[in-house]
């Protein structure tokens, strides 16, 4: 059997990229105690708006900016529901996901009934002749800028301190003069933007077109990764790489026909099963942000 290791690593980095963007987005939101189940819909929105604007304007850059805008709006909507109104987080998040996916599908069906349009100008890989490093700039930014920056912000800055204070004890944070509302809104908007970039990466860089199953549960993978990582940045990145690695390996094996009878679905189910297994093993020791799933009411 021959596995092309370089092609494998290259595919791994590409597959991991949207998970790193959206996973870190979800991590930032969950740090403040909000579980954003709108992630699947927000990634979908980013993929769709990015594609639509890039197609109309001819510029993937404008598409990316529009996707970011869409992600911020999705975050604002989650904030309105779960922070301002204090509604049940998981029901609101699922509602947002269902709404955004239905709205994007509606628009896609309306605009493109027959032929499937493809972007004429999408993002191209940097260093196309170098193995493994033949990646999109969004991949480079995800691993070399976003992840270190998120790690540093959460660990060493006032903003990171405020996020965690709100997530761990919002009453104490409030008494200490940190606005729970503002902190959660900021996290939701920044997180929404990152999720949307993750989705837009698929249309603007990888595929160059939009399909109705484009996100296909990647948002739920990110929910799993964040818990598996126990709300830490580098384990999220590592988890994304492991997941992407198994997927890339599976694709390679399917090509080489050696192990093609290992069902690909089993590999794809691994991140979910790994998280459930980890939760079962860690048990009560899993330290969720203390204000997880709770709305803040000031009497």
């Amino acid at each position, binding site marked *: 059997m021959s596995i092309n290791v370089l092609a494998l690593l290259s595919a791994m980095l590409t597959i991991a990229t949207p998970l790193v963007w959206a996973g870190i987005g979800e991590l930032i939101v969950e740090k403040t105690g909000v579980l954003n189940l709108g992630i699947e819909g927000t990634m979908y929105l980013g993929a769709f708006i990015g594609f639509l604007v890039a197609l109309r304007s001819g510029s993937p850059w404008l598409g990316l900016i529009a996707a970011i805008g869409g992600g911020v709006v999705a975050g604002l909507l989650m904030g309105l529901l779960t922070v301002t109104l204090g509604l049940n987080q998981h029901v609101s998040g699922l509602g947002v996901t269902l709404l955004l996916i239905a709205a994007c599908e509606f628009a896609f069906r309306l605009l493109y009934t027959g032929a499937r349009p493809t972007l004429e100008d999408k993002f191209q890989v940097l260093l196309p002749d170098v193995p493994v490093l033949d990646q999109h700039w969004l991949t480079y930014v995800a691993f070399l800028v976003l992840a270190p920056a998120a790690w540093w912000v959460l660990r060493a800055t006032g903003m990171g301190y405020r996020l965690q204070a709100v997530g761990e004890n919002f009453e104490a944070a409030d008494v200490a003069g940190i606005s729970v509302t503002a902190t959660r809104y900021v996290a939701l908007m920044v997180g929404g933007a990152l999720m949307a970039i993750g989705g837009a990466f698929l249309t603007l860089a990888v595929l160059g077109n939009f399909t109705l199953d484009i996100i296909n549960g990647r948002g739920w993978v990110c929910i799993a990764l964040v818990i598996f990582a126990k709300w830490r940045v580098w384990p999220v990145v590592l988890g994304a790489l492991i997941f992407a690695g198994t997927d890339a390996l599976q694709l390679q094996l399917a090509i080489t026909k050696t192990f093609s009878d290992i069902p690909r679905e*089993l590999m794809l189910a691994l991140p979910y099963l790994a998280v*459930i297994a980890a939760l079962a093993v860690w048990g009560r020791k899993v330290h969720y942000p203390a204000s997880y799933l709770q709305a803040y009411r000031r009497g």
Partner: protein
Amino acid sequence: MRLVRRGHEPAWLPVAAVAVAVLVTVALSAIPIRLAGANPRAAFERYLLVPLSSTLGLYEVMLTATPLLFTGIAVAIAFRAGYWNIGAEGQFLMGAVGTTAVALNAPDLPSWAALPLGFVAGGLGGLAWAWLPAWLKRRGAIDEVVTTLLLNPVALLVVQGLLNGPWRNSETGFTDSDRFGAGYDLPPLISGSRVHWGFGVAVVIVVITWFVFTKTAVGMQIRASGQAPDAAKFSGIPVARLRFRSALVSGAVAGAGGASQVMGVQHQLTQGISNNYGYTGIIVATLAALSPVGVVLVAVLLADIAVGAENVSLVLQVPTQLGAIFAALLLLTVLSAMELRHYRLARSGRRRHGATPVSAEEAS
């Protein structure tokens, strides 16, 4: 102006809140209808009235409502007990898998044996899928929101894996299972229509649930476990055990929904067997305020819109997704309105935001 919590709430307020939410939903849904170039008034007539104004349309609404009745009541049973089962989607799929396993291995059973067996297998499939998160919750106090949610994509992968592998259609080679034996066809509930006995089974389950919730001691205990778990525990109600059992029953009911859908509509397992029915069940149960009667009303309303959406897409070229947009918008607006009803507008006072740390202590 600012919002102040009401001291007194008049009895008509919840009704008014829902009415406002419905109006807002209709107004917001009019935007995509306009974008599609259709007249919102004409479109809404078709969404709401046309399906209900002919016998054939009524049958289609009953057919479309059937899976939503199963998943809606399943979610309501779990939520009532304070168990946040987000996994009805996966349980529905595994119910369909359970039924298919029986149907493919015993294809020639006569219907008196095949149909009950199919439902039992479906119920067990859903129950098995609900068991792990429920057990983890009971044994390890592990949050069920995440575990039930994450098992949904896994269930879909199980379906896809089976259809790509052992259950691939032996005649066409497509990723659908073989067609079930004739014994597994749920007979029509109303002759000459597509409405099948799955609807009848769903209604029976809803009635039983209603009876248990309102007329029995267990129902009262389940309600207490959901609404005031600490008080319930204090008065000797076994909250954890009730939640565990409610979770299993919820999974079994969702699984029976999967059985109903494969035996009543598709007659084979397909990847698209659950058209988001599990997630829509959460919308149904929430909008129904977890009441069994409400589940029937909301399931029929959403089915009405879905059937209308099919019709509108043919006649006025508005994509069918408007049905899903409407359902999601209704969920979010009703939840928002029911929360906002606790507040009234008041003229803004001088008190600055953030000047009352006392209230934070009260909240703790």
